[in-house]
């Protein structure tokens, strides 16, 4: 038998360096810019401040938790616009089961001082359920994910407002508040990220997710049950949005119907900055984590440099674009080089 190809596959066709290094260098670049500006403008270091490094991640942990879920959704070629509203909805509902008895105007006066597991279970359950509905609509009716989750975005926000007629839900038990205490949100975020980083790389769940995003027909003819997997992926995204809702509520020690507004866009931005392709089939949780941290770095950096509030937004838009442009450009260059 004659071999197919006399030319042995070139070694450089194997991905040499992990893709993630690309985006990591964007992070480092942004950090260095802030560091230099720090010395120039304020005569002090931006980075050498453990407290700032913590808050940098802390303030975006909730976005990060959502972004992990959204990343896997985007890898399947979908999108989830409902996360921010689901955060609000789960925060409201979960918090109503986490109130202390000493607060006179609890939502359910008979259901106060419950063990912390109750609101947590309720919150995760609500998120999971919302996600399942998203997944079900997308998989079974074939409507675009953009529309299904846009509908959920509007509806979940409506439910959050309706639940207590716009009243905030406050005064959680100490146990519940502890979820959002100190660096717990960071731990939860990084924990979730770790699980999904490995989950996507080393399990069939992950392989199916990539396969469906890359080529749904190919996935189908390879025997993957595409519909049921899609439902799973969106359900997981909903679950994580629910978790994010719990963390936000615990951290703020209150739940409000307006919470999580536009978080979905930040989460999607984090994923895409981190190298996840909106076309599906490509993306890594590690990149999303870096993308999330870039967002946090920006927020801290602006405050540190006392950038005028009015300029912050203008600049923020530019930085998001610049980060992705840099990433795209470097990828192209690398592709040419090999």
């Amino acid at each position, binding site marked *: 038998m004659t071999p197919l190809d006399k030319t042995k596959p070139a070694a450089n066709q194997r991905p040499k360096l992990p893709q993630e290094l690309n985006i990591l260098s964007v992070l480092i670049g942004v950090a260095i810019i802030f560091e230099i500006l720090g010395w120039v403008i304020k005569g*002090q270091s931006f980075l050498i*401040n453990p*407290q*700032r490094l913590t*808050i940098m991640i*802390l*303030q975006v942990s*909730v976005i990060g938790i959502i972004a992990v879920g959204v990343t896997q959704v985007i890898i399947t070629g979908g999108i989830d616009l409902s996360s921010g509203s689901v955060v609000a909805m789960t925060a409201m509902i979960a918090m109503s089961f986490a109130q202390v008895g000493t607060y006179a*105007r609890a939502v359910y006066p008979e259901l106060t001082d419950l063990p912390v597991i109750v609101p947590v279970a309720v919150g995760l359950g609500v998120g999971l359920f919302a996600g399942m509905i998203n997944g079900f609509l997308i998989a079974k009716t074939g409507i675009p994910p953009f529309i299904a989750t846009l509908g959920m975005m509007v509806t979940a926000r409506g439910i*959050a*407002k309706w639940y207590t*007629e*716009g*009243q*905030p839900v*406050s*005064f959680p038990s100490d146990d519940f508040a502890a979820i959002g*205490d*100190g660096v717990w949100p960071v731990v939860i975020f990084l924990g979730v990220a770790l699980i999904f980083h490995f989950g996507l790389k080393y399990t069939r769940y992950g392989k199916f997710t990539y396969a469906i995003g890359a080529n749904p027909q190919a996935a189908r003819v390879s025997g993957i049950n595409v519909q049921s997997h899609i439902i799973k992926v969106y359900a997981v995204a909903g679950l994580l949005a629910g978790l994010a809702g719990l963390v*936000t509520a615990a*951290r*703020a*020690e*209150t739940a*409000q*119907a*307006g*919470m999580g507004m536009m978080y979905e866009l930040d989460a999607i931005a984090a994923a895409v900055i981190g190298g996840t392709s909106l076309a599906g089939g490509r993306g890594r949780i590690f990149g999303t984590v870096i993308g999330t941290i870039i967002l946090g770095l920006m*927020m*801290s950096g602006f*405050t*540190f440099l*006392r950038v005028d*509030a*009015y300029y912050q937004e203008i600049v923020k838009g530019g930085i998001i674009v610049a980060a992705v442009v840099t990433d795209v450009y470097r990828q192209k260059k690398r592709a040419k080089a090999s």
Partner: protein
Amino acid sequence: ETIGVAMSLFDDNFLTVLRHNIQKHADELGVTVQMEDAQGDIARQQSQIENFVASGVDGIIVMLVDADSGQAMSKIAANADIPLVFVNMLPSNIENFPAKQAWVGSDEEQAGRLEATEVCKLMGGEGEAVILMGQLGTTGQRGRTKATKEVLASDECSEIKILDEQTANWMRTPALDLTTNWLTSGIIPDAIIANNDEMALGAIQALKSAGFSMDDVVVAGVDATQDALAAMQAGDLDVTVYQSAKGQGYGSLDTVLKIAKDENFEQKVVVPFELVTPENLEQYKTKN
């Protein structure tokens, strides 16, 4: 009678209380109210007013998204000859209202003034302060911030330096993060003046978790929400400002009904803000 009520936002603490007061009073009077949520969008609010007109309501109460949009709302209602009462927010066309229109509310600048004056007093007229602003471009943010700055620029308070002013979008968590960012950037204020209570509470959380004693920092908000009053009780919050939701809610409904029945009414009903401090805290606990 049917009264259309167009609210700027449904998910704002104070406005929710205001809304409930209108509803409560309507129930007492046996009036039907149809509430709409403009979700902070002027155009949406304008359409809602138009929809009210098309549905043939007997009167309209509107909590404006922005003071300057009053003009357009006035026109729509006047053209349809339907009574219109602005509640809470002072429309900028207050000076040339059509016949069947009135305003029942409070002056945002007064809130900022009350708040800042008390803070200035607590600081002894000197020190460093930061301002936590609401969502940029909203009437509350502009009025309250402007008044705050005016007070701090006055002779008695001119020794107070404003270190920074940033927005936390009226919300607790962004205020928490922003304050933490401040603290880690070496901005350690003696006073935090917030445009509302939610942000003041966020600032308190940040200060506490950074290990500051709440006795050393003056924290002020506006709204006198339940959460805020509890924080004041605990000695964390120093100043807040009470806005009478009941006064505004009842007043606006009464006024619109008066206009509808061709009774005498006042075109300008001012429901004043009231300063709340630990000293007079008790009397506000049950008010909102």
